[in-house]
């Protein structure tokens, strides 16, 4: 044994190579909060028509949000989850897709949904409790909402793999929240997409909060770094800058479309309202924080830019008028939404014959008839 060297144990910290989590990258930003092009932005592609389209999208989305809030306060909706503050993330991303690309939203993507041609009323119907899925997802290529957090990311991944098998060059984009990234499903989806080189873009609206849970209690490191670790190409972008979001998403989509594999985009944004109409954010966060983000408002920012670029008042009044119409008409249509009838639902659970369901349906009809007889 004497021949063995007996070196004093060196500090292990020095003797091995450790990989340290890197800090988050700096988000891509083209438009500064005061509406000026940043240095990055000055090198970026700018499409006039797109800018005004996106402004309109965001503006109308916000009007819908406000009217839905009113309706909820008046008892006409059971619940509503506002997109307030996240309009640029939604509009910038969805406008970077082809119409045939398939979208799997989470549950807060009303503004994106409008861009896909969903009617405001369709968007409200679920929250009024008349249907679970309020629109034609095949026609709009905008799937119905998933309320079980993160579950849709696996569906999206499976769908994307199907696209690849079919040799179609559409891509899938799925929206996911910062909170949802903690779910096993989302991480399984990232891994699955990577292993399969699936043509999918995970678009994470990191609005800094999951109900009352701030990012620091949700994860460490940075979400886009995590995606990188799973082998995805990943981006971080200022989520309140529609222009940057659009360009980054386009880059991501083209990467995925061209067989480059899955991409993750982290959009740094903020939930300006409460989590939902049932939530009171003052219980867990400072108004001062919200104030900071008010100054980064995505709609104001683009308006300032457009005005500085010479877009005139006429344009803005037109859009405002359209917003008034939207608000007015959605209120009417909402109140007229047809209510579901239980007896209709028995035939909508299974495609094929089901004796137990038939028995229950018959039993329900019998019961209804006794009620009628009693009257």
């Amino acid at each position, binding site marked *: 044994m004497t021949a063995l060297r007996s070196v004093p144990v060196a500090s292990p910290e020095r003797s091995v190579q450790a990989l340290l989590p890197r800090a988050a990258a700096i988000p891509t930003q083209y438009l500064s909060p005061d509406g000026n092009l940043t240095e990055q932005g000055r090198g970026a592609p700018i499409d006039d028509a797109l800018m005004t389209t996106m402004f309109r999208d965001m503006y109308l989305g916000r009007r819908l949000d406000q009217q839905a809030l009113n309706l909820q306060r008046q008892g006409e909706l059971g619940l509503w989850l506002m997109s307030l503050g996240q309009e640029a993330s939604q509009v910038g991303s969805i406008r970077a897709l082809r119409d045939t690309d398939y979208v799997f939203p989470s549950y807060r993507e009303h503004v994106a949904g409008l861009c896909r041609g969903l009617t405001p009323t369709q968007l409200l119907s679920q929250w009024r409790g008349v249907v679970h899925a309020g629109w034609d997802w095949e026609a709009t290529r905008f799937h119905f909402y998933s309320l079980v957090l993160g579950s849709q990311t696996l569906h999206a991944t499976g769908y994307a793999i199907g696209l690849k098998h079919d040799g179609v060059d559409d891509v899938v984009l799925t929206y996911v929240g910062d*909170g949802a990234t903690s*779910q*096993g499903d989302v991480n399984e989806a990232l891994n699955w997409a990577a292993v399969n080189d699936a043509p999918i873009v995970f678009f994470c609206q990191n609005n800094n909060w*999951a109900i009352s849970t701030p990012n620091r209690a949700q994860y460490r490191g940075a979400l886009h770094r995590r995606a990188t670790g799973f082998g995805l190409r990943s981006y971080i972008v200022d989520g309140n800058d529609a222009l940057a979001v659009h360009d980054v998403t386009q880059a991501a989509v083209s990467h995925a479309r061209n067989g480059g594999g899955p991409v993750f985009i982290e959009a740094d944004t903020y939930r300006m309202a409460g989590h939902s109409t049932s*939530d009171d954010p003052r219980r867990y966060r400072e108004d001062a924080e919200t104030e900071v983000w008010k100054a980064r408002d995505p709609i104001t920012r683009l308006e300032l830019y457009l005005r500085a670029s010479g877009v005139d008042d006429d344009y803005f009044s037109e859009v405002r008028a359209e917003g008034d119409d939207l608000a007015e008409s959605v209120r009417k249509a909402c109140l007229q939404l047809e209510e579901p009838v239980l007896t209709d639902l028995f035939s909508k659970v299974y495609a094929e014959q089901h004796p137990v369901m038939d028995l229950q349906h018959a039993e329900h009809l019998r019961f209804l008839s006794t009620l009628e007889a009693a009257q």
Partner: protein
Amino acid sequence: MTQMTMGKALNEGLRAAMQADDKVVVLGEDIGALGGVFRITEGLQDQFGPQRVVDTPLAESGIVGTAIGLAMRGYRPVCEIQFDGFVYPGFDQIVSQLAKMRARSGGRLAMPVVIRIPCGGGIGAVEHHSESNEAYFAHTAGLRVVSCATPEDAFHMIQQAVLSDDPVVFFEPKRRYWDKGDVADTPSLDLHSARVVRAGADVTLVAHGPSVKVAEQAASFAASDGVDVQVVDLRSVSPLDTTTLHACARSTGRVVVVHEASTFLGIGAEVAASVTEHCFRDLQAPVLRVGAYDLPYPPSKAEDDFLPGVDRVLDALERSLSY
């Protein structure tokens, strides 16, 4: 004896449990500063600090799985699942790990973990927010499954659940959170006993959780028609208090069981099977079940017809009596 809502009773029960034993920790999504979406943990973080009242990352498997680890370390975790429909991502940890751990360890490793689940419908919620999934857990060997129906039971049962060395899935009927009732200072029953809520000689009506109130209302209506309905609140769904249940069934010879869960393989099936097996000769009519229909929970505007309400219960009572 004080008056309070069921929500407040749960809050006070948790507070008492945490005061009594500093190994009791509470964990879940948004239970700290917010006090939980139903405010059941309101004020607890202020009082006991963020180490004992923990806002977790958003992952139910993580909540239950780390609670198991904490229990192994000597803690007594109480997990909050935000809504019934969100317990499934944690299903493996509950069913394969939490439930089986003691048996796997040869009876040596205790798992004093409580899983609180606000359950049931009737509040006009969107999908996944109104489910009654107690049967999944009741079918799982190794778990205890209970449900409170009154503020009094809420206050005492949550404390008894925390004191239990077995894992307890604790269902809280969310539409009763705002109902007020008297709360006595000491519990009158242990965690596993059924309670005869109303005496009656003609027919036994068995319920638990949110359906107990429905059963009592039905019994009142029936009384005005001269029918004497006995109402039993199961309280413990697993194990069933078969002694009480069978005695009640024998006393009237007719049993109707009501619950919000799907009828097919709902706890009503077990009640029917058990009562029939043990009280066959005393039964005047088959045990009748009034559960939700075997549909996924419908859009909320249809929930009143979907949930077993007073009229469906009265209809079943009538069918039982005229059998």
